[in-house]
């Protein structure tokens, strides 16, 4: 009997489903029901079953794996709809979450509002206990106090508990004991313990990450449990996996306990698909993915097939310090609003018209000119297109908005003003790409851009030109591409531990023991019967630095030895020189942490394919022509317009040209060529360059 695998990616507007196992991959999309993600997932599966001529129960019964990228945790952060969290912390440190290390994001603006608190002060309680910087207990845990705090937080209506004590990364015994007491006093409590969530130095970042976990945990867990129950009731018996922020997957039954690691579950899918598929199907292993939606622009760098991982970021202005894809987000999207300030400067974003009222051209009452309005006015978008399937775009409204609010104020012609909006927003995107490349020591010219999202491929050619990039890859169906990404993800677990020492003097046996303990933790998550692969990294720094670089610790066998440590030190010097412009090779290299990433092989890897495997190239005739404005010098240029549906693999044409796909637009700028390969990926190449 035919077996299937299903990938699901829930986005803000659409839920994409990919089913592998049929003669060819099936991909389809259904609208996302706001606030009811599970429903959308089941709708999509029903639709897929229908396509195969199967009942839902038949399809699900034959499905081995279902991999899900979800924005459920992210949405709770954005909407402030997480749990009411109670926190227990070391006496004297009640307010770490409130100080946020003193951070204020606008230093000249006293009207800046505080972020929404993760835990109200009334629910932040303290207990006497203390472990010192050497890991010694200097004040025993007051267990009665813990009991009393748990009871009172429960009585106050808290829905989850976070426990964070000072120096628990050196000695977790107090946190563990407090957790036991919490379980006794409040059986079944949803508990987040800092030494489990993030056993790393820096109490603010650790407590904040733990509190975020407690905040999004209950909602995420109940969502996943409900979805899994529905799937099982419909006959699903396979593996239910969720995509993590770092591109690994985790069992859906335990994912809710580590919801903080799902905050980038949505965008991770696209990055993962790019990293897994494109190096095998094209000649590009160095990629920069960009995803431009209505309000934001997400950028991630993939070096040699490996997406960059960061040790943390700010999410809704709270520190989240778990490893995740280094996705850099800037506030530039199709809905970004353009305006002229009193000094005649033109600004675009970060304010966005969103989707309601949306750009002026949506005709829903939006009066502010947006990037989408500029794109429409200049001919990049199809003036005959509809929005949301029914509403026709209103070019007149776009013109009026740009004329009144930009052109007339700044003293430019209409086209020039619209083009100015694009130049400003393009420059912001270029800066954003520099942040993930140049600032990390990578030369963008060594990379290809990968454009997703409805608007990504409208602008990508400009960023490529600014940065000297020769190739832009555009997966034809970006949503499906993201959903597919999850199916290639590796079941993976990461465990961290603090280790303080130096590469030249550390006791290798102590490191070996620590490493073994971490591997053991992974086995308990991933199953010991699987053939696990463990990668070990150490966090290194020079004396005095507090910003580490993680480098691989390469072992021969299972033991850490002196040679492995020396190798790590060397890699650290190299990385420091590459990323930070100098190395101090004669100085000792300090170690602050150890991480083991354990994985079992993904059951599926993308087939290798050559993009040239199409029998012959074809020169498709454009569906029509339209005047498009590419520069002030050239003015309006009569440009061939292709409908994506008309293009088959092998299609090849020169720019300027525009391709309209059902939910995205690809702009081939003058001086560029476009080719659709056998894997349904558009290759935009600067003329004279062949990929």
């Amino acid at each position, binding site marked *: 009997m035919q077996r299937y695998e299903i990938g699901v990616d829930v986005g803000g507007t659409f839920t994409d489903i990919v089913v592998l196992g049929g003669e060819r991959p099936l991909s389809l999309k259904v609208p996302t029901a706001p606030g009811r993600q599970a429903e959308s997932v089941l709708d999509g599966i029903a639709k897929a079953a229908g396509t195969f001529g199967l009942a839902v129960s038949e399809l699900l019964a034959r499905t081995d794996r279902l991999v899900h990228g979800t924005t459920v945790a992210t949405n709770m952060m954005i909407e402030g709809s997480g749990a009411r969290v109670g926190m227990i912390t070391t006496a*004297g*440190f*009640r*307010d*770490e979450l*409130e*100080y*946020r*290390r*003193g*951070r*204020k*994001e*606008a*230093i*000249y*603006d*006293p*009207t*800046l509002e*505080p972020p929404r608190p993760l835990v109200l*002060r*009334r629910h932040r309680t303290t207990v006497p206990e*203390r472990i*010192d*910087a050497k890991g010694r207990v*200097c004040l025993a845990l007051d267990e009665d106090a813990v009991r009393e705090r748990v009871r009172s937080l429960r009585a106050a209506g808290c829905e989850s508990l976070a426990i964070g004590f*000072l*120096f628990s990364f050196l000695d977790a015994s107090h946190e563990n004991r407090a957790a036991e007491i919490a379980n006794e006093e409040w059986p079944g409590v949803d508990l987040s313990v800092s030494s489990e969530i993030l056993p790393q*130095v*820096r*109490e*603010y*970042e650790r407590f904040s990450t733990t509190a975020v976990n407690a905040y999004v945990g209950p909602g995420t867990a109940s969502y996943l449990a409900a979805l899994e129950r529905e799937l099982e009731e419909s006959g699903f018996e396979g593996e239910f996996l969720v995509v993590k922020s770092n591109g690994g997957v985790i069992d859906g039954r335990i994912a809710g306990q580590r919801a903080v690691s799902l905050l980038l579950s949505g965008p991770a899918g696209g990055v993962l698909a790019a990293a897994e598929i494109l190096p095998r199907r094209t000649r590009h292993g160095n990629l920069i993915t960009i995803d431009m939606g209505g309000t934001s622009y997400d950028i991630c760098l993939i070096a040699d097939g490996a997406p960059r991982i960061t040790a943390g970021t700010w999410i809704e202005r709270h520190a989240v310090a778990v490893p995740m894809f280094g996705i850099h987000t800037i506030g530039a999207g199709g809905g970004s609003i353009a305006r002229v*300030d*009193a*000094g*005649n*400067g*033109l600004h675009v974003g970060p304010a966005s018209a969103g989707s309601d009222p949306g750009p002026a051209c949506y005709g829903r009452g939006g009066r502010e000119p947006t990037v989408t309005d500029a794109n429409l006015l200049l001919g990049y978008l199809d003036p005959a297109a509809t929005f949301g399937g029914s509403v026709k775009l209103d070019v007149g409204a776009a013109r009026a908005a740009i004329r009144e609010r930009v052109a007339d104020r*700044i*003293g*430019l012609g209409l086209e020039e003003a619209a083009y*100015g909006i694009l*130049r*400003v927003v393009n*420059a*912001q995107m270029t*800066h954003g790409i*520099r942040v993930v490349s140049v*600032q990390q020591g990578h030369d963008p010219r060594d990379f290809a851009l990968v454009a997703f999202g409805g608007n990504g491929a409208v602008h990508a050619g400009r960023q490529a030109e600014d940065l000297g990039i020769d190739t832009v890859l555009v997966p034809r169906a970006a949503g499906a591409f993201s959903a597919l990404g999850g199916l290639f993800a590796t079941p993976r677990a990461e465990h961290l531990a603090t280790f*303080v020492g130096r590469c030249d003097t550390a006791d290798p046996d102590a490191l070996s023991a620590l490493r073994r303990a971490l591997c053991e933790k992974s086995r308990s998550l991933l199953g010991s019967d699987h053939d696990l692969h463990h990668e070990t990294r150490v966090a290194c720094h020079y004396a*005095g*630095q507090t*910003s580490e670089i993680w480098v691989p610790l390469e072992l021969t066998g299972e033991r850490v030895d002196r040679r492995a440590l020396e190798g790590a030190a060397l890699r650290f010097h190299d990385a420091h020189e590459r*990323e*930070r*412009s*100098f190395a*101090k090779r004669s100085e000792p290299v300090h170690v602050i942490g150890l991480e083991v990433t354990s994985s079992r092989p993904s059951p599926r890897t993308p087939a290798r394919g050559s993009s040239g495997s199409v029998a012959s190239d074809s020169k498709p005739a454009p569906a029509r022509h339209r005047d498009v404005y590419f520069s002030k010098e050239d003015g309006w240029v009569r440009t061939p317009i292709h409908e994506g549906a008309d293009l088959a693999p092998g299609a090849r044409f020169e720019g300027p040209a525009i391709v309209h796909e059902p939910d995205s637009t690809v702009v081939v700028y003058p001086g560029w060529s476009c080719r659709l390969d056998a894997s349904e990926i558009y290759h935009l190449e600067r003329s004279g360059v062949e990929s």
Partner: protein
Amino acid sequence: MTRAFPTPASPPDPITVDVIRGFLETVADEMSLTMKRTAVTPIFSESSDYSCAVMDDRSRLIAQALRTASLPVHMGAMKFSVESVLSAFEGDVHDGDVFLVNDPYHGGSHIPDLTMVMPVHHDGELVLFPAVRAHQMDTGAITPGSYSPTATEIWQEGLRLPPIRICDRGRIREDLVRMLELNTRLPTFRGDLLAMLAACRVGVRRIAELVSKYGIGVIRTACDESIARGVRRIRAEIESWPDGDYEGEAFLDHDGMGTTDINVRCTLRVRGDRLCVDLTGSHPQVRSYVNSSRANTHSNVYLAVATMLDPEISKNEAFFETIDLVLPAHSVVNADAPAPVTACTLNIGGEIAEAVAYAFEGILPERAYPQTLKIGALVMAFGAHPETGELFLDANMDSAAGWSSAVHGLDGWGGLPNHYGMSTLANAEIVEMRFPYRIAERELVPDTGGAGRWRGCCGTRIVKQVDSPMLLNFSAIGRRWPVRGMAGGGDGSANRWIVGCGTEAEREEQALGYLVPLVPGSGFSFQLGGGGGWGDPFERDPDRVLDDVLDGYVSREGAQRDYRVVLTLDGLRVDREQTRALRSRDRGERAR
């Protein structure tokens, strides 16, 4: 090789101006990121006490780091360093040269702030100067940390550097670096100097890319136009203010040498689209290190004015071109050499910013917000580290939390005023792993935020216990003169400075803690004041007062005393009837 374009007669199109401005701001951000990642002392890597900016060949401020670490108290002052480099080395600035300066009488703020300036040349023509100003932990002086409250002359405050050439055409001058190293107590100096150099080099490299893309002519005119835009925007805002003279005055408790209640007086003269900030009437210069250098006074005035304007206005030379500054000679806001000045970036710099904010209460009361850190001086703890025997030196950057005021519509929050919002409080764990003490408490203290319709943020109590003998230097200010409330709001609480906690020697310092010995088992406890409130506290929504009580920002007694809000016996609800009665009675009394 790109040729320099001749300067076009007309400015580039407005969009190119925006693109170049954005690029230069990004350059400053990249420099700043490089500094943070490469520095070796926690004052940079954890607490970000440094700033990056780009100046031009006329020492105009073109762009500053916005999204990364930057301290407004550095920003207005940096151009003076470039000015002094240019005047010292006129006609003798070469590709690959790097300059260093710290002297407050040569465009510096105070001696610990080293400013590194590196020119970008194109075809032999000077174009722009990326620069880093960074607070080195120790630059000599009588006492570790270089905050010397007993100094009466600048020479006692550390090694003075007029502009010197630290790199000669690409080569580091090792002789000078060795000399500098010899004049600091810390072995980390070279590492931090390298970090500054790395940041400057990133700036130079990135600006060179910009030059090769647009040519010098376009960049120059884009910079001119960026500044001109700022000028237009600032003038437009000034013009919307009613003409008149507006006064404000702030006080610093003492100079540590017997002079007390040192005033900064500010008169804002608004005439059409012109603003003059006149500090005439400020106290004559004093004996100790609270005097302000010219550069530092500029910074504090401009940051206070910038806080009153649309935050979107680029922080560039436009501020210097639009705002006239009158500084009385031989005064505490414009000291003559050789007066000592090391504390000035904090206080009296903070009082300068406060005086400007208080004067703005007459123009823009809703927004008037004192950008002040009433810490006196960096609190320096030092001694022999029990494990290494080497000197340790901690600036207590984990401890400086307080003084965050309310504005109209918004309670004070976050534990620090905005202008320190990119410099970060150190984590207690990092501090304890490095220094031999234990932090017993760092928490907000109820009833310390100034009462008001919008409440000032609570102040912080920080308690440190000492594991090893050490000495402590600090300046106990903000006791007589806490942060003032606005528009009828209450003042923030006063600072309290207690040493010898837990021993018989426990006492509250009244003025100066200098070489205070701390023995194992003892400690110190600083209660740092709250922010000022805004508006009449009797008008605060009683439900918000109840929330404050439930959250412990205000005590039940405080609710009744400061806000005339009475809670029910269980403390869970507002007793509306009693509250109404109490408020109307006491309003009436107040009216009489």
